[in-house]
Protein backbone atom coordinates (compact mmCIF):
# COMPACT_ATOMS: atom_id res chain seq x y z
CA UNK A 1 0.00 0.00 0.00
CA UNK A 2 1.71 3.14 -1.15
CA UNK A 3 -0.72 5.67 0.30
CA UNK A 4 -3.04 5.21 3.26
CA UNK A 5 -6.64 4.73 2.20
CA UNK A 6 -8.99 7.64 2.70
CA UNK A 7 -10.93 5.49 5.16
CA UNK A 8 -7.85 5.02 7.30
CA UNK A 9 -7.04 8.70 7.11
CA UNK A 10 -10.52 9.32 8.36
CA UNK A 11 -9.95 6.90 11.22
CA UNK A 12 -6.76 8.49 12.40
CA UNK A 13 -6.94 12.09 11.34
CA UNK A 14 -10.66 12.83 11.19
CA UNK A 15 -13.19 13.58 8.51
CA UNK A 16 -11.71 16.88 7.37
CA UNK A 17 -8.33 15.32 6.63
CA UNK A 18 -10.04 12.45 4.83
CA UNK A 19 -11.95 14.83 2.64
CA UNK A 20 -8.83 16.77 1.80
CA UNK A 21 -7.03 13.54 0.92
CA UNK A 22 -9.90 12.50 -1.30
CA UNK A 23 -9.83 15.84 -3.11
CA UNK A 24 -6.10 15.65 -3.59
CA UNK A 25 -6.38 12.16 -4.90
CA UNK A 26 -9.12 13.12 -7.32
CA UNK A 27 -7.01 15.95 -8.63
CA UNK A 28 -4.04 13.67 -9.07
CA UNK A 29 -6.27 11.43 -11.15
CA UNK A 30 -5.79 8.40 -8.90
CA UNK A 31 -9.46 7.63 -9.13
CA UNK A 32 -8.95 7.53 -12.85
CA UNK A 33 -9.70 3.82 -13.02
CA UNK A 34 -13.34 4.71 -13.30
CA UNK A 35 -12.87 7.67 -15.60
CA UNK A 36 -14.04 5.68 -18.60
CA UNK A 37 -17.79 5.37 -18.99
CA UNK A 38 -19.04 1.84 -18.26
CA UNK A 39 -20.66 -0.25 -20.96
CA UNK A 40 -24.38 -0.72 -21.38
CA UNK A 41 -24.38 -4.02 -19.44
CA UNK A 42 -23.84 -2.08 -16.22
CA UNK A 43 -26.83 0.12 -16.93
CA UNK A 44 -29.04 -2.84 -17.79
CA UNK A 45 -28.12 -4.62 -14.57
CA UNK A 46 -28.67 -1.49 -12.50
CA UNK A 47 -31.99 -0.90 -14.20
CA UNK A 48 -33.00 -4.44 -13.23
CA UNK A 49 -32.07 -3.68 -9.61
CA UNK A 50 -34.18 -0.54 -9.73
CA UNK A 51 -37.17 -2.37 -11.20
CA UNK A 52 -36.98 -4.92 -8.38
CA UNK A 53 -36.73 -2.09 -5.84
CA UNK A 54 -39.72 -0.25 -7.26
CA UNK A 55 -42.05 -3.03 -8.30
CA UNK A 56 -43.35 -4.07 -4.85
CA UNK A 57 -44.26 -0.44 -4.19
CA UNK A 58 -45.95 -0.11 -7.53
CA UNK A 59 -47.71 -3.41 -6.90
CA UNK A 60 -49.22 -2.06 -3.67
CA UNK A 61 -50.34 1.03 -5.59
CA UNK A 62 -51.94 -1.14 -8.30
CA UNK A 63 -53.84 -3.18 -5.73
CA UNK A 64 -54.87 -0.05 -3.85
CA UNK A 65 -56.42 1.34 -7.01
CA UNK A 66 -58.50 -1.72 -7.85
CA UNK A 67 -61.36 -3.63 -6.25
CA UNK A 68 -61.22 -6.79 -4.15
CA UNK A 69 -62.93 -8.52 -7.06
CA UNK A 70 -60.22 -7.57 -9.57
CA UNK A 71 -57.53 -8.72 -7.18
CA UNK A 72 -59.13 -12.12 -6.78
CA UNK A 73 -59.50 -12.54 -10.53
CA UNK A 74 -56.06 -11.35 -11.62
CA UNK A 75 -53.17 -12.55 -9.46
CA UNK A 76 -50.85 -10.63 -11.77
CA UNK A 77 -52.25 -7.10 -11.79
CA UNK A 78 -52.22 -5.20 -15.07
CA UNK A 79 -49.57 -2.50 -15.14
CA UNK A 80 -52.20 0.21 -15.60
CA UNK A 81 -53.79 1.26 -12.31
CA UNK A 82 -57.54 0.94 -11.85
CA UNK A 83 -59.79 3.86 -10.97
CA UNK A 84 -60.61 3.09 -7.36
CA UNK A 85 -57.68 4.68 -5.55
CA UNK A 86 -59.56 7.63 -4.03
CA UNK A 87 -62.49 5.47 -3.10
CA UNK A 88 -60.18 3.05 -1.27
CA UNK A 89 -58.38 5.93 0.45
CA UNK A 90 -61.72 7.16 1.76
CA UNK A 91 -62.58 3.72 3.02
CA UNK A 92 -59.31 3.54 4.95
CA UNK A 93 -59.84 6.96 6.49
CA UNK A 94 -63.41 6.09 7.43
CA UNK A 95 -62.54 2.67 8.81
CA UNK A 96 -62.80 2.22 12.53
CA UNK A 97 -59.07 2.13 13.24
CA UNK A 98 -58.37 5.83 13.75
CA UNK A 99 -56.15 6.32 10.71
CA UNK A 100 -55.98 10.11 11.05
CA UNK A 101 -55.04 9.76 14.67
CA UNK A 102 -52.29 7.34 13.62
CA UNK A 103 -50.99 9.87 11.12
CA UNK A 104 -50.87 12.69 13.64
CA UNK A 105 -49.34 10.40 16.27
CA UNK A 106 -46.62 9.30 13.85
CA UNK A 107 -45.84 12.89 12.89
CA UNK A 108 -45.72 13.98 16.51
CA UNK A 109 -43.45 11.15 17.63
CA UNK A 110 -41.13 11.44 14.63
CA UNK A 111 -40.76 15.23 14.90
CA UNK A 112 -40.19 15.29 18.65
CA UNK A 113 -37.65 12.45 18.59
CA UNK A 114 -35.77 13.94 15.63
CA UNK A 115 -35.42 17.34 17.28
CA UNK A 116 -34.48 15.91 20.62
CA UNK A 117 -32.01 13.35 19.27
CA UNK A 118 -30.24 16.07 17.31
CA UNK A 119 -30.13 18.47 20.25
CA UNK A 120 -28.96 16.01 22.91
CA UNK A 121 -26.58 14.20 20.56
CA UNK A 122 -24.94 17.44 19.47
CA UNK A 123 -24.64 18.53 23.09
CA UNK A 124 -22.97 15.25 24.06
CA UNK A 125 -20.95 15.16 20.84
CA UNK A 126 -19.65 18.67 21.57
CA UNK A 127 -18.53 17.58 25.03
CA UNK A 128 -16.87 14.39 23.80
CA UNK A 129 -15.19 16.00 20.82
CA UNK A 130 -14.03 19.31 22.20
CA UNK A 131 -14.12 19.50 25.98
CA UNK A 132 -11.60 18.01 28.36
CA UNK A 133 -12.95 16.16 31.35
CA UNK A 134 -12.05 13.21 33.51
CA UNK A 135 -13.28 9.88 32.15
CA UNK A 136 -13.88 11.15 28.64
CA UNK A 137 -12.19 8.24 26.87
CA UNK A 138 -13.83 5.37 28.76
CA UNK A 139 -17.22 7.06 28.63
CA UNK A 140 -16.98 7.45 24.86
CA UNK A 141 -16.00 3.79 24.50
CA UNK A 142 -19.02 2.94 26.61
CA UNK A 143 -21.28 4.92 24.27
CA UNK A 144 -19.90 3.11 21.22
CA UNK A 145 -20.28 -0.25 22.96
CA UNK A 146 -23.94 0.41 23.72
CA UNK A 147 -24.73 0.68 20.01
CA UNK A 148 -24.15 -3.08 19.89
CA UNK A 149 -26.42 -3.89 22.83
CA UNK A 150 -29.72 -5.43 21.71
CA UNK A 151 -31.84 -3.25 23.98
CA UNK A 152 -34.99 -4.52 22.29
CA UNK A 153 -34.64 -7.56 24.52
CA UNK A 154 -35.43 -5.44 27.58
CA UNK A 155 -39.06 -5.00 26.53
CA UNK A 156 -40.52 -6.91 29.46
CA UNK A 157 -39.08 -4.70 32.22
CA UNK A 158 -39.47 -1.60 30.08
CA UNK A 159 -43.15 -2.39 29.84
CA UNK A 160 -43.26 -2.77 33.65
CA UNK A 161 -41.60 0.63 34.02
CA UNK A 162 -44.17 2.23 31.70
CA UNK A 163 -46.97 0.53 33.58
CA UNK A 164 -45.61 1.91 36.84
CA UNK A 165 -45.60 5.39 35.29
CA UNK A 166 -49.12 4.94 33.94
CA UNK A 167 -47.88 5.49 30.38
CA UNK A 168 -49.35 2.41 28.71
CA UNK A 169 -51.22 3.59 25.63
CA UNK A 170 -49.61 7.05 25.87
CA UNK A 171 -47.32 8.55 23.26
CA UNK A 172 -44.63 9.50 25.79
CA UNK A 173 -44.00 5.79 26.30
CA UNK A 174 -42.69 5.71 22.73
CA UNK A 175 -41.13 9.18 22.71
CA UNK A 176 -39.09 9.14 25.92
CA UNK A 177 -36.95 6.01 25.27
CA UNK A 178 -35.99 7.49 21.89
CA UNK A 179 -35.01 10.98 23.04
CA UNK A 180 -31.30 10.40 22.52
CA UNK A 181 -29.44 7.51 20.89
CA UNK A 182 -25.91 6.15 21.24
CA UNK A 183 -25.54 6.24 17.50
CA UNK A 184 -26.46 9.93 17.43
CA UNK A 185 -23.88 10.79 20.09
CA UNK A 186 -21.19 8.84 18.25
CA UNK A 187 -22.12 10.40 14.91
CA UNK A 188 -22.00 13.97 16.21
CA UNK A 189 -18.77 13.36 18.15
CA UNK A 190 -17.06 12.17 15.00
CA UNK A 191 -18.33 15.07 12.97
CA UNK A 192 -17.54 17.81 15.45
CA UNK A 193 -14.06 16.45 16.07
CA UNK A 194 -13.17 17.32 12.48
CA UNK A 195 -15.48 20.21 11.71
CA UNK A 196 -15.10 22.45 14.76
CA UNK A 197 -11.69 24.09 15.25
CA UNK A 198 -10.50 24.63 18.82
CA UNK A 199 -9.57 28.22 17.96
CA UNK A 200 -13.22 29.07 17.47
CA UNK A 201 -14.18 27.71 20.87
CA UNK A 202 -11.26 29.46 22.56
CA UNK A 203 -12.17 32.74 20.90
CA UNK A 204 -15.69 32.48 22.23
CA UNK A 205 -14.42 31.62 25.71
CA UNK A 206 -12.01 34.54 25.75
CA UNK A 207 -14.89 36.78 24.79
CA UNK A 208 -16.53 35.60 27.97
CA UNK A 209 -19.12 33.25 26.56
CA UNK A 210 -20.33 30.58 28.95
CA UNK A 211 -20.02 26.93 28.01
CA UNK A 212 -23.62 26.72 26.94
CA UNK A 213 -23.40 29.95 24.97
CA UNK A 214 -20.34 28.53 23.19
CA UNK A 215 -22.29 25.41 22.36
CA UNK A 216 -25.33 27.30 21.19
CA UNK A 217 -23.63 29.91 19.00
CA UNK A 218 -20.50 28.05 17.86
CA UNK A 219 -20.93 24.28 17.99
CA UNK A 220 -24.56 24.00 16.97
CA UNK A 221 -24.20 26.02 13.75
CA UNK A 222 -20.99 24.17 12.87
CA UNK A 223 -22.78 20.85 13.31
CA UNK A 224 -25.58 21.68 10.91
CA UNK A 225 -24.76 19.34 7.97
CA UNK A 226 -24.34 16.28 10.19
CA UNK A 227 -27.32 17.31 12.29
CA UNK A 228 -29.57 17.41 9.23
CA UNK A 229 -28.59 13.88 8.28
CA UNK A 230 -29.05 12.64 11.83
CA UNK A 231 -32.51 14.22 11.91
CA UNK A 232 -33.44 12.51 8.64
CA UNK A 233 -32.32 9.07 9.77
CA UNK A 234 -34.03 9.48 13.11
CA UNK A 235 -37.23 10.54 11.37
CA UNK A 236 -37.21 7.49 9.08
CA UNK A 237 -36.40 5.14 11.97
CA UNK A 238 -39.19 6.60 14.09
CA UNK A 239 -41.73 6.53 11.27
CA UNK A 240 -41.07 2.87 10.50
CA UNK A 241 -40.71 1.69 14.11
CA UNK A 242 -43.16 -1.05 15.02
CA UNK A 243 -42.16 -3.48 17.79
CA UNK A 244 -42.23 -1.21 20.84
CA UNK A 245 -45.16 1.04 19.76
CA UNK A 246 -47.13 -2.11 18.98
CA UNK A 247 -46.53 -3.44 22.49
CA UNK A 248 -46.99 -0.29 24.51
CA UNK A 249 -49.54 1.74 22.54
CA UNK A 250 -52.09 -0.85 21.54
CA UNK A 251 -54.99 -0.27 19.21
CA UNK A 252 -56.55 2.72 20.97
CA UNK A 253 -53.74 5.17 20.27
CA UNK A 254 -51.71 3.77 17.36
CA UNK A 255 -48.86 5.07 15.24
CA UNK A 256 -49.04 4.32 11.49
CA UNK A 257 -47.33 0.91 11.50
CA UNK A 258 -49.54 -0.19 14.38
CA UNK A 259 -52.59 1.03 12.45
CA UNK A 260 -51.47 -0.97 9.40
CA UNK A 261 -51.26 -4.09 11.53
CA UNK A 262 -54.79 -3.39 12.79
CA UNK A 263 -55.99 -2.86 9.25
CA UNK A 264 -54.54 -6.18 8.17
CA UNK A 265 -55.91 -8.06 11.16
CA UNK A 266 -59.41 -6.58 10.82
CA UNK A 267 -60.00 -6.44 7.06
CA UNK A 268 -57.77 -9.29 5.89
CA UNK A 269 -60.23 -10.22 3.15
CA UNK A 270 -60.26 -6.76 1.62
CA UNK A 271 -56.85 -6.46 -0.01
CA UNK A 272 -57.55 -3.22 -1.85
CA UNK A 273 -58.41 -1.54 1.44
CA UNK A 274 -55.26 -2.80 3.17
CA UNK A 275 -53.04 -1.77 0.27
CA UNK A 276 -54.63 1.69 0.24
CA UNK A 277 -53.55 1.96 3.87
CA UNK A 278 -50.04 0.84 2.93
CA UNK A 279 -49.83 3.44 0.16
CA UNK A 280 -51.08 6.19 2.48
CA UNK A 281 -48.49 5.29 5.10
CA UNK A 282 -45.64 5.19 2.57
CA UNK A 283 -46.41 8.46 0.73
CA UNK A 284 -45.04 10.85 3.39
CA UNK A 285 -41.66 9.16 3.51
CA UNK A 286 -41.51 8.93 -0.28
CA UNK A 287 -42.05 12.68 -0.44
CA UNK A 288 -39.34 13.18 2.14
CA UNK A 289 -37.12 10.93 0.04
CA UNK A 290 -37.69 13.02 -3.08
CA UNK A 291 -36.66 16.15 -1.18
CA UNK A 292 -33.84 14.74 0.95
CA UNK A 293 -32.87 11.40 -0.60
CA UNK A 294 -29.61 12.90 -1.77
CA UNK A 295 -28.71 13.63 1.83
CA UNK A 296 -29.69 10.15 2.97
CA UNK A 297 -27.34 8.69 0.36
CA UNK A 298 -24.56 11.05 1.45
CA UNK A 299 -25.20 10.21 5.09
CA UNK A 300 -24.93 6.47 4.54
CA UNK A 301 -21.82 6.86 2.45
CA UNK A 302 -20.17 9.19 4.90
CA UNK A 303 -19.95 6.73 7.61
CA UNK A 304 -20.97 3.91 9.77
CA UNK A 305 -24.52 5.08 9.97
CA UNK A 306 -25.76 1.82 11.43
CA UNK A 307 -23.66 1.82 14.51
Amino acid at each position, binding site marked *: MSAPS*VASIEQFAGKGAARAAQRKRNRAGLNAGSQRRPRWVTYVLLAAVLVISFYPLYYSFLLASSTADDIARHPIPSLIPGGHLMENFHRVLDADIGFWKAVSNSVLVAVITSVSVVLFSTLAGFAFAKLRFRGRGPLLVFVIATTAVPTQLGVVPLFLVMKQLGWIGQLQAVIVPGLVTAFGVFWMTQYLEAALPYELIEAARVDGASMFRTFWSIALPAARPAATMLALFTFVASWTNFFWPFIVLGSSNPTLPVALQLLQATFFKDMSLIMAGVVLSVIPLLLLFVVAGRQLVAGIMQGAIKG
Partner: protein
Amino acid sequence: MTSTQTSPEAEPTAGDERQRQTRRVGFTQTLGRWDVKVSPYLYISPFFILFLVTGLFPLLYTAYVSVFKWDLLLGKGDFVGFENFSTVLQAPVFWKAVRNTVSIFLLSSVPQVILALVIAALLDANLRARTFWRMGVLVPYVVAPVAVGVIFSRMFADQSGIINQVLQNIGLNPIGWHSEVLPSHLAIATMVNFRWTGYNALIFLAAMQAIPRDLYEAALIDGANRFRQFFSVTIPMLRPTIIFVIITSTIGGLQIFDEPRMFDQYGRGGADQQYLTLTNYVYQLGWTNRNFGRAAAVAWLLFVLILVIGIVNYLITRRISSDKSAVSKKRKKVRA
Protein backbone atom coordinates in the same frame (compact mmCIF):
# COMPACT_ATOMS: atom_id res chain seq x y z
CA MET B 1 -10.28 28.79 29.17
CA THR B 2 -11.45 30.63 32.20
CA SER B 3 -11.27 34.37 32.20
CA THR B 4 -8.06 35.72 33.66
CA GLN B 5 -9.27 39.24 34.20
CA THR B 6 -8.55 39.54 37.92
CA SER B 7 -6.65 42.54 36.87
CA PRO B 8 -3.87 44.00 38.98
CA GLU B 9 -5.47 47.44 38.56
CA ALA B 10 -8.26 46.36 40.83
CA GLU B 11 -5.97 45.90 43.82
CA PRO B 12 -4.34 49.20 44.77
CA THR B 13 -7.30 51.63 44.90
CA ALA B 14 -9.21 50.62 47.95
CA GLY B 15 -12.45 52.36 47.04
CA ASP B 16 -15.71 50.77 48.11
CA GLU B 17 -16.89 50.33 44.54
CA ARG B 18 -13.65 48.77 43.43
CA GLN B 19 -13.81 46.25 46.20
CA ARG B 20 -17.26 45.17 45.26
CA GLN B 21 -16.14 44.78 41.69
CA THR B 22 -13.21 42.60 42.67
CA ARG B 23 -15.50 40.40 44.63
CA ARG B 24 -17.84 40.15 41.68
CA VAL B 25 -15.03 39.23 39.34
CA GLY B 26 -13.98 36.59 41.84
CA PHE B 27 -17.47 35.22 41.95
CA THR B 28 -17.76 35.14 38.15
CA GLN B 29 -14.47 33.34 38.05
CA THR B 30 -15.63 30.62 40.42
CA LEU B 31 -18.80 30.36 38.40
CA GLY B 32 -16.69 30.10 35.26
CA ARG B 33 -14.52 27.37 36.69
CA TRP B 34 -17.59 25.53 37.86
CA ASP B 35 -19.02 25.97 34.36
CA VAL B 36 -15.92 24.43 32.78
CA LYS B 37 -15.83 21.53 35.21
CA VAL B 38 -19.46 20.56 35.31
CA SER B 39 -20.70 21.40 31.82
CA PRO B 40 -19.22 18.37 30.02
CA TYR B 41 -20.90 16.00 32.43
CA LEU B 42 -24.11 17.92 32.17
CA TYR B 43 -24.03 17.67 28.37
CA ILE B 44 -23.42 13.95 28.21
CA SER B 45 -25.77 13.12 31.05
CA PRO B 46 -29.02 12.97 29.02
CA PHE B 47 -27.68 10.02 27.06
CA PHE B 48 -26.37 8.17 30.07
CA ILE B 49 -29.44 8.71 32.20
CA LEU B 50 -31.76 7.65 29.41
CA PHE B 51 -29.64 4.64 28.52
CA LEU B 52 -29.49 3.50 32.14
CA VAL B 53 -33.23 3.85 32.63
CA THR B 54 -34.57 2.58 29.30
CA GLY B 55 -31.70 0.39 28.07
CA LEU B 56 -29.40 -1.12 30.65
CA PHE B 57 -31.75 -1.41 33.60
CA PRO B 58 -34.49 -3.22 31.63
CA LEU B 59 -31.90 -5.58 30.14
CA LEU B 60 -30.54 -6.53 33.58
CA TYR B 61 -33.94 -6.53 35.21
CA THR B 62 -34.99 -9.09 32.60
CA ALA B 63 -32.78 -11.56 34.46
CA TYR B 64 -34.63 -10.76 37.69
CA VAL B 65 -38.07 -11.17 36.12
CA SER B 66 -37.03 -14.45 34.53
CA VAL B 67 -36.63 -16.24 37.88
CA PHE B 68 -40.14 -15.41 39.09
CA LYS B 69 -43.63 -16.39 38.26
CA TRP B 70 -44.74 -13.09 36.81
CA ASP B 71 -48.13 -12.31 35.31
CA LEU B 72 -48.80 -9.33 33.03
CA LEU B 73 -51.81 -8.28 35.10
CA LEU B 74 -51.24 -9.83 38.52
CA GLY B 75 -47.59 -8.84 38.73
CA LYS B 76 -44.80 -10.61 40.57
CA GLY B 77 -45.52 -14.05 42.00
CA ASP B 78 -43.38 -16.74 43.63
CA PHE B 79 -39.68 -17.17 43.14
CA VAL B 80 -39.22 -20.18 40.90
CA GLY B 81 -35.50 -20.22 40.21
CA PHE B 82 -34.62 -21.56 36.80
CA GLU B 83 -38.00 -23.17 36.24
CA ASN B 84 -38.93 -20.69 33.49
CA PHE B 85 -35.73 -21.50 31.68
CA SER B 86 -36.10 -25.25 32.00
CA THR B 87 -39.75 -25.14 30.89
CA VAL B 88 -38.84 -23.06 27.87
CA LEU B 89 -35.84 -25.19 26.97
CA GLN B 90 -38.05 -28.29 27.02
CA ALA B 91 -40.74 -26.71 24.87
CA PRO B 92 -40.59 -27.80 21.20
CA VAL B 93 -41.93 -24.37 20.21
CA PHE B 94 -38.82 -22.70 21.59
CA TRP B 95 -36.54 -24.86 19.47
CA LYS B 96 -38.71 -24.25 16.43
CA ALA B 97 -38.34 -20.53 17.05
CA VAL B 98 -34.55 -20.93 17.33
CA ARG B 99 -34.48 -22.86 14.07
CA ASN B 100 -36.67 -20.28 12.30
CA THR B 101 -34.71 -17.32 13.61
CA VAL B 102 -31.33 -18.73 12.59
CA SER B 103 -32.62 -19.94 9.23
CA ILE B 104 -34.25 -16.62 8.34
CA PHE B 105 -31.14 -14.83 9.51
CA LEU B 106 -28.85 -16.90 7.30
CA LEU B 107 -31.16 -16.61 4.30
CA SER B 108 -31.28 -12.86 4.68
CA SER B 109 -27.72 -11.99 5.64
CA VAL B 110 -25.58 -14.13 3.34
CA PRO B 111 -27.31 -13.35 0.00
CA GLN B 112 -27.74 -9.77 1.11
CA VAL B 113 -24.04 -9.14 1.64
CA ILE B 114 -23.19 -10.81 -1.68
CA LEU B 115 -25.86 -8.91 -3.61
CA ALA B 116 -24.91 -5.65 -1.96
CA LEU B 117 -21.29 -6.17 -2.97
CA VAL B 118 -22.33 -6.79 -6.58
CA ILE B 119 -24.58 -3.73 -6.67
CA ALA B 120 -21.84 -1.64 -5.10
CA ALA B 121 -19.41 -2.83 -7.76
CA LEU B 122 -21.92 -1.78 -10.44
CA LEU B 123 -22.36 1.62 -8.83
CA ASP B 124 -18.61 2.06 -8.49
CA ALA B 125 -18.28 2.99 -12.14
CA ASN B 126 -18.21 6.38 -13.74
CA LEU B 127 -21.96 6.32 -14.34
CA ARG B 128 -24.11 8.90 -16.00
CA ALA B 129 -26.75 10.25 -13.61
CA ARG B 130 -24.86 8.80 -10.66
CA THR B 131 -27.11 10.28 -7.98
CA PHE B 132 -30.20 8.87 -9.66
CA TRP B 133 -28.90 5.30 -9.46
CA ARG B 134 -27.71 5.71 -5.91
CA MET B 135 -31.02 7.12 -4.77
CA GLY B 136 -32.85 4.43 -6.71
CA VAL B 137 -31.33 1.55 -4.81
CA LEU B 138 -32.19 3.27 -1.52
CA VAL B 139 -35.93 3.63 -2.15
CA PRO B 140 -36.94 0.42 -0.30
CA TYR B 141 -35.24 1.71 2.85
CA VAL B 142 -37.97 4.31 3.42
CA VAL B 143 -40.73 1.69 3.29
CA ALA B 144 -41.60 0.53 6.80
CA PRO B 145 -40.98 -3.18 7.48
CA VAL B 146 -44.65 -3.47 8.37
CA ALA B 147 -45.66 -2.18 4.94
CA VAL B 148 -43.08 -4.43 3.29
CA GLY B 149 -44.59 -7.32 5.25
CA VAL B 150 -48.10 -6.59 4.03
CA ILE B 151 -47.02 -6.19 0.40
CA PHE B 152 -44.84 -9.31 0.28
CA SER B 153 -47.24 -11.53 2.19
CA ARG B 154 -49.71 -10.78 -0.61
CA MET B 155 -47.14 -11.31 -3.37
CA PHE B 156 -46.18 -14.63 -1.77
CA ALA B 157 -49.80 -15.72 -1.19
CA ASP B 158 -50.16 -19.49 -1.53
CA GLN B 159 -53.32 -19.12 -3.58
CA SER B 160 -53.51 -16.55 -6.36
CA GLY B 161 -50.36 -14.74 -5.34
CA ILE B 162 -48.35 -13.12 -8.09
CA ILE B 163 -45.23 -15.21 -7.51
CA ASN B 164 -47.03 -18.55 -7.61
CA GLN B 165 -48.91 -17.38 -10.69
CA VAL B 166 -45.66 -16.54 -12.45
CA LEU B 167 -44.26 -19.93 -11.46
CA GLN B 168 -47.30 -21.66 -12.91
CA ASN B 169 -47.15 -19.58 -16.08
CA ILE B 170 -43.65 -20.82 -16.76
CA GLY B 171 -44.71 -24.38 -16.05
CA LEU B 172 -43.52 -24.88 -12.48
CA ASN B 173 -45.49 -26.06 -9.47
CA PRO B 174 -46.80 -23.43 -7.07
CA ILE B 175 -44.96 -23.32 -3.72
CA GLY B 176 -46.55 -23.22 -0.26
CA TRP B 177 -44.87 -19.96 0.70
CA HIS B 178 -46.89 -19.71 3.88
CA SER B 179 -47.59 -23.33 4.71
CA GLU B 180 -44.12 -24.82 4.37
CA VAL B 181 -41.08 -24.23 6.52
CA LEU B 182 -38.22 -23.32 4.21
CA PRO B 183 -40.32 -21.44 1.61
CA SER B 184 -41.80 -19.25 4.35
CA HIS B 185 -38.31 -18.49 5.61
CA LEU B 186 -37.26 -17.60 2.07
CA ALA B 187 -40.23 -15.26 1.66
CA ILE B 188 -39.51 -13.49 4.95
CA ALA B 189 -35.80 -13.27 4.16
CA THR B 190 -36.74 -11.70 0.82
CA MET B 191 -38.53 -8.89 2.68
CA VAL B 192 -35.43 -8.18 4.75
CA ASN B 193 -33.20 -8.28 1.69
CA PHE B 194 -35.58 -5.99 -0.18
CA ARG B 195 -35.29 -3.31 2.44
CA TRP B 196 -31.58 -3.49 3.32
CA THR B 197 -29.60 -4.59 0.25
CA GLY B 198 -29.46 -1.15 -1.35
CA TYR B 199 -28.58 0.46 1.96
CA ASN B 200 -25.65 -1.89 2.50
CA ALA B 201 -24.60 -1.50 -1.14
CA LEU B 202 -24.11 2.23 -0.48
CA ILE B 203 -21.95 1.45 2.57
CA PHE B 204 -19.82 -0.87 0.44
CA LEU B 205 -19.72 1.68 -2.36
CA ALA B 206 -18.30 4.29 -0.01
CA ALA B 207 -15.62 1.86 1.12
CA MET B 208 -14.82 0.86 -2.48
CA GLN B 209 -14.27 4.44 -3.48
CA ALA B 210 -11.74 4.81 -0.71
CA ILE B 211 -9.55 2.02 -2.13
CA PRO B 212 -6.44 3.61 -3.66
CA ARG B 213 -6.56 3.19 -7.40
CA ASP B 214 -2.87 2.35 -7.71
CA LEU B 215 -3.69 -1.06 -6.22
CA TYR B 216 -5.84 -1.73 -9.26
CA GLU B 217 -3.12 -0.44 -11.54
CA ALA B 218 -0.63 -2.82 -9.94
CA ALA B 219 -3.08 -5.70 -10.32
CA LEU B 220 -3.62 -4.76 -13.94
CA ILE B 221 0.10 -4.81 -14.61
CA ASP B 222 0.24 -8.24 -13.00
CA GLY B 223 -2.31 -9.34 -15.58
CA ALA B 224 -5.40 -9.57 -13.36
CA ASN B 225 -8.71 -9.23 -15.20
CA ARG B 226 -11.69 -7.41 -13.69
CA PHE B 227 -13.03 -10.43 -11.83
CA ARG B 228 -9.65 -11.24 -10.42
CA GLN B 229 -9.28 -7.60 -9.39
CA PHE B 230 -12.62 -7.75 -7.62
CA PHE B 231 -11.72 -10.85 -5.62
CA SER B 232 -8.06 -10.10 -4.97
CA VAL B 233 -8.14 -6.35 -4.42
CA THR B 234 -11.65 -5.09 -3.73
CA ILE B 235 -12.89 -7.80 -1.37
CA PRO B 236 -9.76 -7.91 0.85
CA MET B 237 -9.72 -4.13 1.05
CA LEU B 238 -13.36 -4.09 2.09
CA ARG B 239 -12.77 -6.50 4.95
CA PRO B 240 -13.43 -4.10 7.86
CA THR B 241 -16.58 -2.79 6.19
CA ILE B 242 -17.87 -6.30 5.49
CA ILE B 243 -17.29 -7.30 9.09
CA PHE B 244 -19.08 -4.16 10.24
CA VAL B 245 -22.10 -4.87 8.04
CA ILE B 246 -22.23 -8.52 9.08
CA ILE B 247 -22.08 -7.71 12.77
CA THR B 248 -24.77 -5.04 12.65
CA SER B 249 -26.99 -7.29 10.55
CA THR B 250 -26.45 -10.10 13.08
CA ILE B 251 -27.60 -7.97 15.97
CA GLY B 252 -30.61 -6.67 14.05
CA GLY B 253 -31.41 -9.81 12.06
CA LEU B 254 -31.67 -12.14 15.04
CA GLN B 255 -34.21 -9.80 16.66
CA ILE B 256 -36.47 -9.86 13.60
CA PHE B 257 -40.11 -9.28 14.52
CA ASP B 258 -42.05 -7.07 12.09
CA GLU B 259 -41.85 -9.14 8.91
CA PRO B 260 -42.94 -12.52 10.34
CA ARG B 261 -45.55 -10.74 12.45
CA MET B 262 -47.10 -9.25 9.31
CA PHE B 263 -46.75 -12.36 7.14
CA ASP B 264 -50.38 -13.28 7.86
CA GLN B 265 -53.29 -11.61 9.60
CA TYR B 266 -52.96 -13.66 12.81
CA GLY B 267 -49.35 -12.95 13.60
CA ARG B 268 -48.74 -16.21 15.44
CA GLY B 269 -45.96 -17.37 13.18
CA GLY B 270 -48.09 -19.77 11.15
CA ALA B 271 -50.33 -22.72 11.98
CA ASP B 272 -47.37 -24.93 12.82
CA GLN B 273 -45.13 -22.09 14.08
CA GLN B 274 -43.18 -22.54 10.87
CA TYR B 275 -42.13 -18.88 10.86
CA LEU B 276 -42.38 -17.95 14.52
CA THR B 277 -39.15 -16.15 15.46
CA LEU B 278 -37.72 -15.77 18.96
CA THR B 279 -38.84 -12.16 19.30
CA ASN B 280 -42.32 -13.17 18.13
CA TYR B 281 -42.18 -15.87 20.79
CA VAL B 282 -41.23 -13.34 23.47
CA TYR B 283 -44.24 -11.26 22.47
CA GLN B 284 -46.54 -14.26 22.43
CA LEU B 285 -45.44 -15.49 25.86
CA GLY B 286 -45.55 -12.05 27.44
CA TRP B 287 -48.55 -10.35 25.90
CA THR B 288 -50.74 -13.17 24.60
CA ASN B 289 -50.14 -15.69 27.39
CA ARG B 290 -49.42 -12.96 29.97
CA ASN B 291 -46.45 -14.93 31.23
CA PHE B 292 -43.73 -12.32 31.77
CA GLY B 293 -41.40 -14.69 33.60
CA ARG B 294 -41.14 -16.99 30.63
CA ALA B 295 -40.99 -14.12 28.13
CA ALA B 296 -38.02 -12.71 30.06
CA ALA B 297 -36.34 -16.13 30.04
CA VAL B 298 -36.65 -16.35 26.25
CA ALA B 299 -35.37 -12.78 25.89
CA TRP B 300 -32.25 -13.73 27.84
CA LEU B 301 -31.75 -16.88 25.80
CA LEU B 302 -31.99 -14.78 22.64
CA PHE B 303 -29.41 -12.43 24.09
CA VAL B 304 -27.05 -15.37 24.59
CA LEU B 305 -27.73 -16.58 21.04
CA ILE B 306 -26.88 -13.16 19.62
CA LEU B 307 -23.67 -13.13 21.62
CA VAL B 308 -22.65 -16.62 20.46
CA ILE B 309 -23.44 -16.00 16.79
CA GLY B 310 -21.72 -12.63 16.99
CA ILE B 311 -18.53 -14.26 18.26
CA VAL B 312 -18.72 -17.09 15.68
CA ASN B 313 -19.24 -14.47 12.99
CA TYR B 314 -16.23 -12.56 14.12
CA LEU B 315 -14.00 -15.62 14.18
CA ILE B 316 -15.11 -16.80 10.74
CA THR B 317 -14.67 -13.43 9.07
CA ARG B 318 -11.24 -13.11 10.66
CA ARG B 319 -10.20 -16.53 9.40
CA ILE B 320 -11.45 -15.99 5.86
CA SER B 321 -9.78 -12.70 5.37
CA SER B 322 -6.42 -13.61 6.90
CA ASP B 323 -5.61 -15.82 3.91
CA LYS B 324 -4.48 -13.84 0.97
CA SER B 325 -4.98 -10.16 1.46
CA ALA B 326 -1.95 -7.96 1.23
CA VAL B 327 -3.22 -5.91 4.11
CA SER B 328 -3.29 -8.70 6.62
CA LYS B 329 0.11 -9.94 5.53
CA LYS B 330 1.44 -6.53 6.31
CA ARG B 331 -0.26 -6.61 9.68
CA LYS B 332 1.28 -9.99 10.47
CA LYS B 333 4.68 -8.61 9.69
CA VAL B 334 4.12 -5.74 12.03
CA ARG B 335 3.06 -8.09 14.76
CA ALA B 336 6.05 -10.38 14.31
